[in-house]
């Protein structure tokens, strides 16, 4: 009986937690872009710069080095130069602007930018069916990358 009670309580607690996390997550089409960028966290959970560095580096996730050089990752071979170097990027942009650029840079620069929107449903034509409604990164992965970018100061 006691064991069962514990199980039930635990299950309810877990459900409540996951519902809370879901409820505070901003949906990709509800992100508000202002002059200063995106002011509020997409998840309400502080970004983790260590996880963000991994997302940044991973070719299957951010793959940010494909286009951006980053001296902080000089151990990685081959940094692209399609976009600007990210050295000192946190000196140039505040956190809300970094969040906005990662989430959907077309809202900040112009429609013509090559940079994909990592938390956007404004995608190209003929989208692969399994990616319908999916963003490149999750809201938390964006927060993690933004936290990592915040460490890149000169």
């Amino acid at each position, binding site marked *: 009986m006691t064991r069962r009670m514990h199980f039930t309580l635990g299950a309810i607690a877990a459900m409540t937690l996951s519902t809370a996390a879901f409820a505070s997550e901003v949906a990709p089409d509800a992100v508000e872009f202002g002059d200063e960028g995106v002011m509020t966290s997409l998840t309400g959970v502080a970004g983790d710069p260590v996880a963000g560095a991994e997302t940044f580096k991973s070719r299957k996730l951010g793959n940010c080095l494909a286009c951006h050089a980053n001296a902080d990752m000089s151990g990685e071979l081959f*940094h692209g*130069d*399609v976009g600007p170097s990210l050295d000192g990027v946190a000196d140039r942009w505040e956190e809300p602007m970094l969040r906005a650029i990662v989430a959907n840079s077309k809202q900040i620069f112009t429609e013509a930018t*090559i940079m*994909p*929107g990592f938390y956007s449903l404004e995608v*190209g034509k*003929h*989208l692969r069916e399994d990616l319908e409604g999916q963003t490149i990164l999750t809201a938390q992965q964006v927060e993690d990358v933004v936290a990592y970018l915040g460490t890149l100061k000169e």
Partner: protein
Amino acid sequence: MKRLLVAGVVLAASLAGSGPIWADPVDDTLEIDGVPIVTRTAAPEGHPFDELYSGWLFREKETRDLSRDSFENPGMIAVEDGEAMWNTVEGTAGKSCASCHGDAAESMKGVGASFPKWDADSGRPINVELQINKCRTEQMGAEALPFNKGGQQELTAYIKHQSLGMPVKLDLTEGEMQSWWERGKDVYYTRTGQLNLACASCHEVAMGKMIRADHLSQGQVNGFPTYRLKSGLTSLHQRFRGCIRDTRAVQPDAFSDDLMALETYVTWRGTGLSVETPSVRQ
């Protein structure tokens, strides 16, 4: 075997060293077995670039050197296979390509520089691969070759190689070639997939930049089928499909209307560059 070893060594070397990072096409000239190759030329009227560059100018020295000598070029194995196929009888009519066309060095000279052409029978542009299939089904009594199978790439490489060094020049006045060119232009500038990229995003706007270890070229097609050091002989429509897949979009079918239009348009974008088939690329 020697060619395969050479290719392997170059691949290993390019993976191991970080190599020089440069922003522009190199200053170098290409001759293949004494045939001068135009690797840079003035763009035709209405082209977004002033000057056209062969993808050869964007590759590292080791890769460029493999193109200079047809004995070192690993793609020449495919050309030899294609030559054997040219002379092989197939189908109910008991014919080979050579039965009607004789010596390819004579009869196929210029073909690789002038296709796609208008095909009134099908009412669409026809490329070398589809022309081979037309000959097979209508003249030889043989089955059409499926995409990239049955020696399609090898025979295409052999036929295009007969135009080595000749400048690419399409006739857009034939039939409805001009409207297919327009459609191909639309395809070229259409952003696709989750990554939301068009051909132009990389090969026009970011041309000359590095995307990770890859030096972005103008996306010229004068060397196809090309020998890629990472994947071997590669047909043009295979490359189109690979690029589009990488944008995380549905891949169009090879020889579909969209890709035939795209082939027409990007071939025009290389007007005046020499045919390099089989080129050697990264």
